């Protein structure tokens, strides 16, 4: 079974002594490999929490997650770190780049923790990823000197440099203008359609969501509707 499969996922947070927020409750989800899915919904509906659970950042209170048929929700410690490294590329709204280091070092970062990639490959892989995203001439610069669109492309390069098959993007276009929004969306679509990657995007932008294979609508921690836009 190819793709991401989740069943009965729940997560609640204790916000004070006697109040609990059910961020996600009982979500069933299936995203096929090579598919691009958008998760939309009002603020606070649990989109980020769901994405973080799929990406092994937040541990679900209950439920199970399978990636390509392998059970991953119980992974802990070093195993989950290795798994994240090999399988997931994360793209964040605030880019999550290290400002003090060059674009090159930022893109290279995941490879430092990948035992299968020798350091001789670093240069080639960074260059390839950067070229495919049109930032090959910016490798020596610091991310803080780049425009928002360029920065997000650096972050996407980092998310694919180890050959991660799954990209998890939490509002990747949230800090960008209209032109860069559609450009980043083009890149993500291309990674899915021509790169064979599975992409999950959390977004508020319905016009971007409309370009995806599927739109998953959330409300109050539950999936309200799960529709395929174009079939």
């Amino acid at each position, binding site marked *: 079974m190819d793709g991401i499969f989740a069943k009965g996922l729940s997560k609640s*947070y204790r916000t004070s002594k006697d109040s609990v927020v059910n961020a996600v409750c009982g979500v069933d989800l299936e995203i096929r490999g090579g598919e691009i899915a958008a998760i939309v919904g009002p603020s606070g509906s649990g989109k*980020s*929490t769901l994405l*973080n659970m799929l990406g092994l*950042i*937040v*541990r679900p209170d209950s439920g199970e997650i399978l990636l390509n048929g392998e059970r991953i929700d119980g992974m802990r*410690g*070093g195993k989950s*770190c*290795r798994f*994240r*490294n*090999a399988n997931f590329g*994360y793209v964040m709204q605030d880019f*999550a*780049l*290290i400002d*003090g*280091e060059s674009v090159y070092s930022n893109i290279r*970062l*995941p490879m*430092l*923790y*990948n035992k299968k990639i020798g350091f001789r490959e670093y240069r080639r892989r960074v260059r390839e990823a950067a070229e495919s995203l049109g930032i090959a001439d910016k490798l020596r610069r610091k991310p803080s000197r780049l425009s928002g669109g360029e920065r997000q492309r650096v972050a996407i390069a*980092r998310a694919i440099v180890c050959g991660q098959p799954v990209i998890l993007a939490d509002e990747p276009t949230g800090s960008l203008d209209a032109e860069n929004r559609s450009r980043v969306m083009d890149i993500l679509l291309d990674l899915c359609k021509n790169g064979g990657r599975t992409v999950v995007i959390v977004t508020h932008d319905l016009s971007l969501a409309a370009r995806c294979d599927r739109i998953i609508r959330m409300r109050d921690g539950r999936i309200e509707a799960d529709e395929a836009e174009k079939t």
Partner: protein
Amino acid sequence: MKLIRQVLNDFRRELVWLIVYSVLASTVFCTLPGLFGALSSESRRQLYEIEEELRRSDLSMIVTKGLRIGSVPEDARVAFDAPPRPYTGRTLRAMLEEGFSREGKLGSFAVERDADTGRAKYVFFVGKYVDLAPVAVPEDCDYYICASEGAAESAGGTVTVFGEELPITGAVPEGTAIYHPVHPYAAENLDGALYVFIRDYESLRRIFWYSHTTFINENLIAVGADREELAELVSAMHRETGQYVCVQTTEELLGVSTERMKTYAELLFKLSAVFALLAAMALNISRAIRRWGTEYSIHHLFGAPGPFIFARMLLFGLGYNLIAVESMWYRVLFPVGWTFTYFADGTVAAEKTRGAVSAAEAGRTAVSTGVIAAAVLAVCVYEFIRFKAKFSKGMRGE
């Protein structure tokens, strides 16, 4: 390798703070070993024991130096104000001879210091003070010389005092202190000093003819003497030396002793200061680590294992204190003093002198290093737990 590179990079970006911190922390850390010495239970126990001993003995302090009328209770001046007894014709010398004899009631101690380092070199306990000293001195000998465990000379050897070669017979445990309520060096640590115990005035005069009066002048006490005897001695001292002399009982002294209060207040002050400074150190390390929080998260997100992140925090935290700790050790391993020689023509020659390593000092420095390392470890463990908790909540705050 990548760990080292990352940590070095962290330092590079923290350089200015690191330098400022190192300078401040060096001075703070250098006070730590001394404080641990002062706080050691051994020296406090001895202080307490001697104090108890003083309380039990019916002791009067004959204060000839550093007399502060303001701090002396009304009663204490009774002996001074008491009308002089009819002149018996006994000279001060005769009184001292009798007082410092085996059956006598007088005692004293004195400290001779090294001119360069200022540390106690010889400590003399005379007369009744021999029994108050924290060492069992055989009854039958006129004088008894002991080396402290940290001294250059040791038991079985000899020491030359004013041309006379005297055998060293005993040993005194490290961490021994003198306690004297009016002595400004109360509870001074005497590691490395040579102890000389003398029971009678004749031996004192024979061996230390050169400076025997200082023994009498500085820290004179009387044990079990009545008011008349004290009044006679006080009158004789006043008559023959012109010195105004005051007498205080132990109870009065232990009650009001300003020196003792000063010692405790000082200890308390030092303790709270070091506590505050250690807390400031911990806070600064924690601040420095938190500064890299986002970066640690990014590394962790893309696969850096937890222990790797922890090692990066710990190396950073320990390295942060490296310069300060090193300067603390430098001070112990290469203690440097200056000797100034003044010539008649007004020129001054300054000479650098190197002291010796004291094992106790090194031990205390090691303890201080341990305390600092433990504090850093504690901060790092705390910060790491905090980091993991935050990360697993989707990188959102507590």
